[in-house]
């Protein structure tokens, strides 16, 4: 047995892969900090500036500690079971996504070793399925807390998710058509010379908007909507229970950025002459991947602070009446393009 067999043993990779959860946790804490600091910069405020130096980089840690010492409240009218289970599902859906996402890869010569807890043959379907679970969690939270604001947020949220899940799925098929695989590692590898964003520009735009809406980010934010619904699904939540749900949303944001990089922006692929540099070259794909994810997270946060929020009917209309036809168009374009490739380069 050589080292590769040991590392890719499912029990080994499953247990060591739990470290990935820790890494994503740190990234999510950094994303919370980035959102606050960067948002403050955009709005000409100061933002966090006390904990951990001038830039307040440890603000997220301080917040987490504070949440641990807050009283845990369950309102008298709440449905206790739903109320307690909901944050677990929101967070759990993030956890379950981490399993199948490769966070970069180590490239040695011709061999590519993706850094993922598992490599399934249908990982894109799996990822779509478990990411949709978080909406269920949010709905349970709202229904369980028996609050009017939460309830309105939950219904809107469901309508939003319903409208954007279909274009998202069609865009993923558009990518799968080109890579002829549903394995996210194969899809990432298939973009070796040319990223899919250049081959399917429409698909990328639709995917970007859909995933933005799917994560519940502004300008499609309907699950919190602070301006009119107090705090949406989280109105009745307090302390760490609320923190878990919110944290789940930030994990979703980071993972959504990862998906965008893997499916459309070329994943970790680097030209051969870079990866052939001894040791450092093998690790370069990881930095390349993380760098791209960071840029996407930056853009997502910038969009949040730059744009006002859409009304719910506008959100739903955009999903059903614009993005869905566009995504079908992109699918047909992707099929035509891959048939042309097949005819030119095929056997």
């Amino acid at each position: 047995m050589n080292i590769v067999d040991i590392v890719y043993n499912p029990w080994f990779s499953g247990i060591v892969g739990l470290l990935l959860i820790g890494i994503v946790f740190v990234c999510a804490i950094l994303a919370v900090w980035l959102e606050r600091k960067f948002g403050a910069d955009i709005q000409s405020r100061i933002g966090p500036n006390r904990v951990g130096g001038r830039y307040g980089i440890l603000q997220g840690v301080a917040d987490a500690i504070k949440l641990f010492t807050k009283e845990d409240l369950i309102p008298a009218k709440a449905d206790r079971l739903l109320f307690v289970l909901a944050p677990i599902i929101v967070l759990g859906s993030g956890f379950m996504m981490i399993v199948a996402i490769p966070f970069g890869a180590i490239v040695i010569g011709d061999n590519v070793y993706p850094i993922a807890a598992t490599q399934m043959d249908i990982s894109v379907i799996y990822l779509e399925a478990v990411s949709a679970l978080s909406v269920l969690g949010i709905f349970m939270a709202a229904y369980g807390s028996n609050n009017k604001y939460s309830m309105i947020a939950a219904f809107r949220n469901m309508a939003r998710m319903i409208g954007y899940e279909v274009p998202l799925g069609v865009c993923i098929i558009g990518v799968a058509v080109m890579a002829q695989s549903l394995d996210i590692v194969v899809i990432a590898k298939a973009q070796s010379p040319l990223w899919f964003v250049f081959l399917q520009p429409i698909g990328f735009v639709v995917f970007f908007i859909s995933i933005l809406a799917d994560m519940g980010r502004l300008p499609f934010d309907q699950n919190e909507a602070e301006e009119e619904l107090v705090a949406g699904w989280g109105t009745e939540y307090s302390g760490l229970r609320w923190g878990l749900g919110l944290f789940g949303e930030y994990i979703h944001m980071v993972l959504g950025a990862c998906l965008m990089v893997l499916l459309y922006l070329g994943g970790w692929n680097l030209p051969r002459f870079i990866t052939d540099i001894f040791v450092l070259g093998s690790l370069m794909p990881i930095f390349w991947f993380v760098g791209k994810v960071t840029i996407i997270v930056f853009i997502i946060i910038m969009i949040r602070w730059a744009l006002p929020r859409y009304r719910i009917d506008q959100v739903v209309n955009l999903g059903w009446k614009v993005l869905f036809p566009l995504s079908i168009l992109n699918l047909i374009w992707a099929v035509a393009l891959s048939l042309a490739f097949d005819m030119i380069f095929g056997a």
Partner: protein
Amino acid sequence: MSGVIDSYIPVIIFLIVALAVPPVLMFIVYNLSPRSKAKDKFTTYECGSVPIGEAKIQFNIEYYLYAIAFVLFDVEILFLYPWATVYIGHGITQVAVVEMLLFLVVVLMGYVYLWKKEALKWVK
């Protein structure tokens, strides 16, 4: 390298961890956090006034149409996933592509019907 079932072992491990972490955290919170004696803290938040009635309302029936449309399209789209992996390189390319286009036409006919019936219109 490994079978199909093997690739789901890490999923099971992650599922167990995902279910175990929040209760452990909540146990820590339970031991750390203070408890106030106030009784009003258990009332539902409604901007300070006394809540009227229940929140578990029946939502507008048109909302249901979205759900139906979603189930229809999502299930139909699901058929395209396996298709996407096999349509090239198995000697069935022409048949597969034509069949997929026919399938999409049927799906889009349903879509146009829904649009014309104003099922995709958000009711104020």
